[in-house]
């Protein structure tokens, strides 16, 4: 394969997979899959997972892992709803307080990894379990439901310009985070840290601070994902966010086969998120049992990790 063709495949690989997947489902279920309603459905369902995936991507970009994102999302969904239903806080207060909790957990992750030198896999798992503990401490493991300010249902079910608000939220965040990653000093320094920590340090980049910031951002985005889940469900479910961890990883790694081959990126993660959601929705539309969804998720995760590894090795050998 020529160099140019090789680079093309690397940069567009996952995009091609997405298009192929969409094409396959359109062919398999032309009347039920290929509808505007279904497209809206796919994009709406993708929203919370996308936010959690963006958080994970920020951590991956600086060369770390954040295992706490699922638990943090669950905790924050519960807190967000609970603050309004139990403590009768307004929407804004509930959001800010929830973000404050998430931010603190992210800060702990950052300090544990950068100051205590604990491996991120273990450190963030610990923080995640702390989040789980806080979750059950606050809500006792029960679903929290009750009257909440109108804006919550507007976000969860409402539309603007014919597009579901949750979709506008996650796409807007995608753009903002992409601009941050590409267009700011912090963004490029984060990429440098993830690419070669030693070189970054020699360029007087503050590696520890950047990594800590990444963990804080990851937690905040996971919190946003959790709050979005609650808005969509209309209640605070204690385990609603747990499953998003694996999807977040899958999306991030699938994304490394798109946009910047071999590197994690926000646009790449967007494609990864869509691949997953198209898969899940497509299987559901075809009436396949839920078990198949898990099979698909597992296979895609392995495929995504293998793809990333293969890409890296192919680049290295060229």
């Amino acid at each position: 394969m020529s160099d140019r063709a090789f680079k093309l495949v690397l940069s567009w690989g996952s995009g091609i997979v997405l298009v192929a997947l969409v094409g396959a489902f359109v062919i398999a279920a032309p009347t039920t899959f290929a509808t505007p309603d279904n497209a809206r459905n796919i994009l709406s369902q993708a929203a919370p997972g996308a936010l959690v995936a963006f958080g994970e991507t920020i951590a991956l970009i600086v060369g770390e892992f954040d295992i706490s994102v699922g638990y943090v999302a669950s905790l924050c969904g519960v807190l967000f709803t609970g603050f309004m239903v139990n403590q009768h806080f307004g929407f804004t207060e509930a959001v800010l307080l929830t973000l404050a909790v998430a931010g603190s957990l992210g800060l702990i992750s950052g300090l544990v990894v950068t100051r205590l030198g604990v491996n991120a896999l273990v450190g963030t798992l610990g923080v995640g379990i702390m989040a789980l503990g806080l979750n059950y401490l606050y809500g006792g493991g029960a679903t929290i439901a009750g009257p909440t300010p109108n804006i919550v249902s507007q976000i969860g079910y409402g539309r603007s310009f014919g597009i579901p608000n949750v979709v506008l939220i996650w796409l807007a965040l995608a753009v903002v985070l992409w601009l941050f990653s590409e267009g700011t000093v912090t963004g490029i320094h984060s990429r440098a840290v993830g690419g070669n920590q030693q070189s970054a340090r020699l360029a007087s980049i503050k590696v520890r601070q950047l990594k800590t910031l990444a963990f804080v951002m990851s937690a905040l985005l996971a919190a946003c994902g959790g709050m979005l889940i609650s808005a969509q469900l209309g209640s605070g479910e204690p385990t609603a966010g747990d499953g998003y961890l694996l999807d977040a990883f899958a999306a991030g790694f699938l994304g490394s086969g798109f946009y910047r081959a071999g590197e994690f990126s926000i646009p790449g993660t967007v494609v990864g998120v869509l691949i997953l959601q198209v898969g899940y929705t497509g299987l559901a539309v075809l009436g396949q049992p839920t078990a198949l969804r898990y099979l698909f998720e597992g296979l895609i995760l392995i495929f995504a990790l293998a793809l990333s590894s293969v890409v890296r090795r192919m680049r290295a050998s060229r």
Partner: protein
Amino acid sequence: MSEPSLLQLSGVSKHFGGVIALRPLDLEVAQGEILAIAGSNGAGKSTLLRIMCGAESSDTGRILFEGIEKHHWDIASTRKLGIEVVHQGLALVGQLSPIENLFLGREFTLGSDRTPFLAHRRMERRGQDLLREVGVRLKNIHEKTEDLSGGQRQAIAIVRAIGWGKRLVILDEPTAALGIAESAHVNDVIRSLRERGLGVVLVSHRLDQIIELADRAVVLRNGVLVGHLEGSAIKAGPLAELITGEHAGQVA
């Protein structure tokens, strides 16, 4: 030394755990001179280099810049003083483009550097100027640095140091990955730095390069500064003897 002193190390030493990397030594680099540091692997050259550029702290001694003692000596402060380094490993980030590497840690930003947003076009223009000045030709400046050849990567690292170096440029094996013609070109560039009044520290395995370029040469052996040669005294024989610690007649 006729030229004013630029960087002065006095009684500087370094150990790592039980290993002594550098015994207390004195070293001085002046403006407008090329100081070569020679020595075999493990002699302590890298450690000395890292202390000089602030990547490593010394255990003892003082560091003076232009005669003033500096108590805070790290990479950020040495960069501000106009000290630049071409590291042996190049210290580039492969995933980034040559331009991004050239400006890493000192990016131009919009709004006269008052906003956090990158001024991509300004950096691109300046970067291309720098590359052209040193005669580096790249087919695609947006390519990832890891996709360039070894020689091109080395050239980027050299351009970076020269572009930002205003007072002192430290080069660690700068022509290791280069061919004859390119090496000769780099030697010319190093000489031009001296002509411009910068101080140059050159760490090199290549005795021919040291003999050709250096005004003064010091030799490290097992962490000790064992010799100092000047001008016409810098010859292969004396250098080799100091590096190996064996007299010419003893080499079997």
